[in-house]
């Protein structure tokens, strides 16, 4: 409930001394009265929902905190003894399983003593997102930062240099895989999608236009899972024996192609929404096609489509979990594999909760960032 920007500016000046407004119109009490107990119907709804929420919260806390098993003893042979967890099954959460499995969930089959490398990669990815989100860094140098960070990330993941042991791609897993697939998928799909959107609207190049339409319609007409299967199951059959691009790379290419087709339609929607006068004015000024596109139409079009773009981004971040069908251990698959451990049989809710929290953290950050950037870029409209 922040006040609109105009009011904030008006209040910023030297405030004249004035009396505090009465508590009945300003302050938390007034807010509660105005928003929660505003009339009989509203009061009933508030009470009913309040009781329901309290009841659910009580149940969750009882299960997740009060009755929860936080650690289990180790048997004489060094194995974990999950008897306590099995006894508490249904009444209390078994966080001991997370305690045992969190590293596998986050890093998959990455060699155990080398997992700090994958951990640094996650931190680097988050740092990269943070830096890229700040408008002060939107300069040419950002491209170098990206290139350098990605180089560091892949050096850490692969190793084989600077005394780091070599880790084949098959052993990568968990959150780094999800981040790699999502980051590269979107970072490469986005430029491709802009080109496809421009191509699809092109009037001067009918062949390119047809190609773009065929590409978009073909990819959109097929489920992502089918594309992943094609990349994983059919593609190797066409290649000579021994000449096989890596499984992860094949999945990555499939995701890029799929994301680009969807993003292209979003971008095209933005281009469609611009009044024709903008392009005509640019033409009248004698700008070339690329000048017109890069300086006039595209910036305005992209600004218009931030919400659907972010919507698609969030969708794809989660869709990367479909690689489980082709045996790549991303965050969700690694967690499901952790669940299969007979020691922790029956412990699935706890693991799903942790995975959901990781996904929510990333997706919520994306959506709240999109809201803030919409506000910043839309100042021109909201004056």
């Amino acid at each position, binding site marked *: 409930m922040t006040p609109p920007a105009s009011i904030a500016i008006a209040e910023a000046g030297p405030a004249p001394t004035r009396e505090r407004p009465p508590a009945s119109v300003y302050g938390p009490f007034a807010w509660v009265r105005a928003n929660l107990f505003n009339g009989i119907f509203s009061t009933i709804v508030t009470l009913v929902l309040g009781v329901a929420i309290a009841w659910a919260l009580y149940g969750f806390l009882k299960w997740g905190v009060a009755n929860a098993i936080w650690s289990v003893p180790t048997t004489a042979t060094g194995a974990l003894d999950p008897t306590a967890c*099995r006894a508490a099954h249904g009444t209390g959460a078994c966080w001991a399983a997370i305690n045992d499995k969190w590293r596998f969930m986050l890093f*998959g089959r990455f060699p155990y003593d080398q997992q700090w490398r994958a951990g640094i990669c996650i931190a680097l990815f988050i740092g990269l997102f943070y830096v890229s989100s700040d408008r002060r860094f939107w300069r040419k140098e950002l491209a170098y930062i990206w290139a350098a960070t990605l180089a560091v990330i892949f050096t850490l993941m692969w190793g084989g240099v600077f005394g780091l042991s070599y880790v084949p791609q098959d052993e990568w897993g968990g959150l780094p895989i999800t981040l790699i697939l999502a980051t590269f998928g979107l970072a490469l799909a986005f430029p491709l999608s802009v080109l496809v959107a421009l191509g699809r609207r092109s009037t001067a190049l009918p062949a390119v236009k047809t190609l773009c339409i065929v590409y978009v319609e073909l990819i959109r007409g097929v489920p992502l899972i089918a594309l992943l299967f094609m990349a994983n199951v059919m593609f*190797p059959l066409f290649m000579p024996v021994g000449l096989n691009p890596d499984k992860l790379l094949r999945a990555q290419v499939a995701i890029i192609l799929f994301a680009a087709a969807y993003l292209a339609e979003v971008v095209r929607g933005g281009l469609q929404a611009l009044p024709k006068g903008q392009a005509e004015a640019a033409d009248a000024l004698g700008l070339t096609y690329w000048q017109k596109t890069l300086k006039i139409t595209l910036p305005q079009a992209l600004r218009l489509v931030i919400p659907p773009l972010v919507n698609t981004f969030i969708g794809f971040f989660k869709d990367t979990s479909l690689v489980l069908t082709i045996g790549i251990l991303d965050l969700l698959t690694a967690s499901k*594999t952790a669940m299969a*451990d007979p020691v922790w049989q029956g412990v699935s809710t706890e693991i799903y909760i942790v995975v959901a929290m990781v996904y929510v953290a990333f997706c919520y950050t994306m959506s709240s960032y999109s809201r803030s950037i919409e506000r910043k870029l839309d100042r021109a409209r909201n004056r």
Partner: protein
Amino acid sequence: MFRLTVGAGLLASALLAALPAMAQPSGSATLDAVKARGTLICGVAGAVPGFSLPDSQGIMRGIDADSCRNVAAAVLGDANKVKFAVTTTQNRFTALQSGEIDLLVRSTTWTLGREASLGLEFAGVNYYDGTGFLVKKALGVKSAKEMDGATICVQPGTSTELAISDYYRVNKMKFTPILIQDLAEIQAAFLAGRCDAYSTDSSALATFRATQTNKDDFLLLPEIISKEPLGYVVRKGDDKWFDIVRWSYFATVAAEEMDVSSKNVDEMLASTNPDIRRLLGVEGEMGKSLGLDAKWAYNIIKQVGNFGETWDRNITVLGVPRGINAVWTKGGLHYAPPIR
């Protein structure tokens, strides 16, 4: 015409000249590839407890994983030189056909259809499994024959589903299937009493029963209604490789028969028993005839263990009885031809 002939001749001689350079002494493309690479790429499920499942440290554990290690120990002399490729039920055969993996040990049932039509062959069986039924003791049923009209929880699209309907048709009984895809959900449904019996591979049923706190409330019915021999799969057409994979399995069974284990294998090198001496490469040229080192079987037994050790480490801990998976001398089905 002349030019064409000369050209063809040149090409042919170039090919002939290239051939000896490419051909390796082993005569097996897969063996050469594995040796050149220095690692064995082995396709596993990566999600089946007891067969292949990464532990909390990410290390692949299970009888399938150890079967891969056997082959790596025999071929490369180091059981750890295995790259485990996680395959799904859909892509496992393609991965093998396309050469992405050298060997598939993914609890895959040996059937005529698969061997005859997929260009693959089964080099050995590391687990004789079969479809079984798990019921609550409170139900009072002692045999599957008493289960007319029962509701049975089963995963859709599996061979289990087919096996049950065949079994009920043959025995002229009726049942109501409750089809649930997700493993955790199907187990919860059975525990909650939504179905009278839970049916899947008997190994999985035994594991499930063993991990319940009240395991004595459950009964695994004696009937095993289908045959599911699970084993090693290789590509057709590479007979040398087939031999290596098959005999790396036989070596572990032979070792168990003769009580050679990872603990006593070094003492056994001094054994006077000619069978043991041949197995461990002290005598004869068994390894050489396979295209391997003389110590091939010694390396398997020393680094991975004999068949019984592998079994105990991976399957016994799940609470699954040995049953027909004992060696033949103890009444089971695992039988190795003589190593001589």
